[in-house]
């Protein structure tokens, strides 16, 4: 079920809230939320329920085994591999088979439909197993509580990826307050409006341009397509995260933030501290640190340190660790070369910034503007790679952006894509990328708050109107 669907907005959500608040006992409330979450998941496709259940079951049993084991790490490895094997089978087996086939000039294929949200909930399950193994938290002996952690419908299918140690205490002990409810309600509507009014409109333009044969559009249109997609992906995914965080608050949960105005970044490293934060920190805590620490203890590292000094050893460590982490980050997004290239492309710029000291705070306004332009340029191009059907398509598209493709027959010129409505949407998309609106929303003045709430209700009405009138309503991150 989509958050931005009339069924969710007018049936599922209100009914869930009403029934939830007729009960006061924590344990019953939690069981009911779990029931609602399973219903939410099964609504779309009931066939994938067993896979979700298997992940929950493996993690539940696994953590208890890890806790009792004398060889915690090897026990954890077994259950981590079990969880990962399902993700691997459904998401990557086809891709690997196809590419291995290519090596032997064979056409092998395996077409599986990706279970909804598998990349997200598998990562939550892994977070739990690793946290228990590291000893930061206790294994959850209540099966329903653990199921709720993995299946809680606000974050089940597209995140934020909540780490177990961030939310463990809230499952049993949280406060549902009117303030949190009010906050969650507003946050949800803002997310809905971002998604329905801005992301969908930008997405329609991006889809049109990315579907064109390369020879049928020129540089200005290519840039427009790239910009439209840059806006779509941000408003789509951050809107979804707003809705998830808002929904969590309705039931007293504090779900960690996922976005922090990424488009104001001055470097790609900063961008990744502001974009899909829950995934970035997941990879940092569960992949980057372990990989780096084992690299530091490796013979290669010690040898380089001995012969070439600490700095060179540090560079070696950064290159290897960043390649592994960003290759994996790319692959997490999808089983395709475009995603791997996209991940490594990000890693490359982060390494570049590290080696040159780029992006550090500078007093000069001019330099800061240049840094900002650099970052925008790099991430807009990165999204072209992300959006393209193949690496080849991405390459041609980027060439087209820089006027490197000469033979054109442009049937539809720029003004065709830029009608008044689209210009309005782009202007809003640009303005809302800046944190100033967060401060406006939080201004402490009853009179202003009333006016803001009127605007929020207008945004809600417009979103509902748009949902009834328009069928274009995809969610980018549902594919992962």
């Amino acid at each position, binding site marked *: 079920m989509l958050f931005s669907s009339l069924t969710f907005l007018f049936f599922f959500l209100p009914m869930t809230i009403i029934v939830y608040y007729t009960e006061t006992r924590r344990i019953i409330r939690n069981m009911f939320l779990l029931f609602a979450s399973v219903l939410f998941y099964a609504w779309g496709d009931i066939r994938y329920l067993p896979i979700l259940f298997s992940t929950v079951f493996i993690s539940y049993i696994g953590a208890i085994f890890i806790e009792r084991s004398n060889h915690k790490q090897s026990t954890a490895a077994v259950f981590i591999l079990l969880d990962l094997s399902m993700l691997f089978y459904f998401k990557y087996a086809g891709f690997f088979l196809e590419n291995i086939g290519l090596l032997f000039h064979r056409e092998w294929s395996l077409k599986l439909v990706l279970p909804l949200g598998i990349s997200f909930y598998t990562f939550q399950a892994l977070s739990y197993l690793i946290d228990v193994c*590291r*000893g*930061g938290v206790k294994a959850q002996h209540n099966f329903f509580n653990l199921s709720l952690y993995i299946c809680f419908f606000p974050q089940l299918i597209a995140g934020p990826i909540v780490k177990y140690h961030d939310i463990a205490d809230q499952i049993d002990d949280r406060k549902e307050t009117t303030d949190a409810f009010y906050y969650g309600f507003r946050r949800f509507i803002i997310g809905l409006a971002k998604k329905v009014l801005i992301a969908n409109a930008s997405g329609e333009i991006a889809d049109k341009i990315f579907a064109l044969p390369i020879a049928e559009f020129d540089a200005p249109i290519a840039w427009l397509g790239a910009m439209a997609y840059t806006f779509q992906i941000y408003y789509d995914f951050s809107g979804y995260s707003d809705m998830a965080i808002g929904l969590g608050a309705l039931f007293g949960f504090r779900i960690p933030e996922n976005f922090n105005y990424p488009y104001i970044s001055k470097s790609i490293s900063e961008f990744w*501290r502001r974009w899909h934060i829950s995934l970035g920190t997941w990879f940092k805590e569960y992949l980057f*640190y372990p990989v780096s*620490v084992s690299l530091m203890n490796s013979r290669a590292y010690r040898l380089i340190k001995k012969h070439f000094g600490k700095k060179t050893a540090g560079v070696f460590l*950064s290159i290897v660790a960043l390649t592994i982490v960003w290759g994996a980050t790319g692959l997490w997004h999808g089983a395709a070369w475009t995603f791997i290239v996209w991940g490594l492309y990000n890693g490359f710029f982060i390494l570049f910034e*590290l080696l040159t000291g780029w992006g*550090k705070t500078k007093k000069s306004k001019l330099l800061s503007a240049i840094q900002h332009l650099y970052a925008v340029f790099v991430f807009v191009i990165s999204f072209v790679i992300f959006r393209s059907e193949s690496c080849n398509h991405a390459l041609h598209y980027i060439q087209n952006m820089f006027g490197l493709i000469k033979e054109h027959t442009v049937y539809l010129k720029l003004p065709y894509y830029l009608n008044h409505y689209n210009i309005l949407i782009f202007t809003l998309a640009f303005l809302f990328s800046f944190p100033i609106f967060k401060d406006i929303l939080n201004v402490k003045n009853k009179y202003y708050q009333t006016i803001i709430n009127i605007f929020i209700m207008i945004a809600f009405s417009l979103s509902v109107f748009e949902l009834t009138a328009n069928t274009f309503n995809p969610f980018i991150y549902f594919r992962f």
Partner: protein
Amino acid sequence: MDRKEILKKITEIIRDVFDDDKIDISEETVAADVEGWDSLTHITLIGTIEDEFNIKFAMKDVVNMKNVGEMIDLIIKQTD
């Protein structure tokens, strides 16, 4: 070594790792207070501190260390 001495030594290490002699460190200092203290420099710092004090941090501590004070606690726990 007492806390003061450890803090002094950590300050020296941090100044060296970040290549900045003006950084002031207290027990309350968190990563966000120091320009450029990101995951990559964090690892370098952890490695240098481990070598200097001849200790090993657990992975849980590498990830969850909240401030310099906590780092000192962990060092004391292992050197005593």
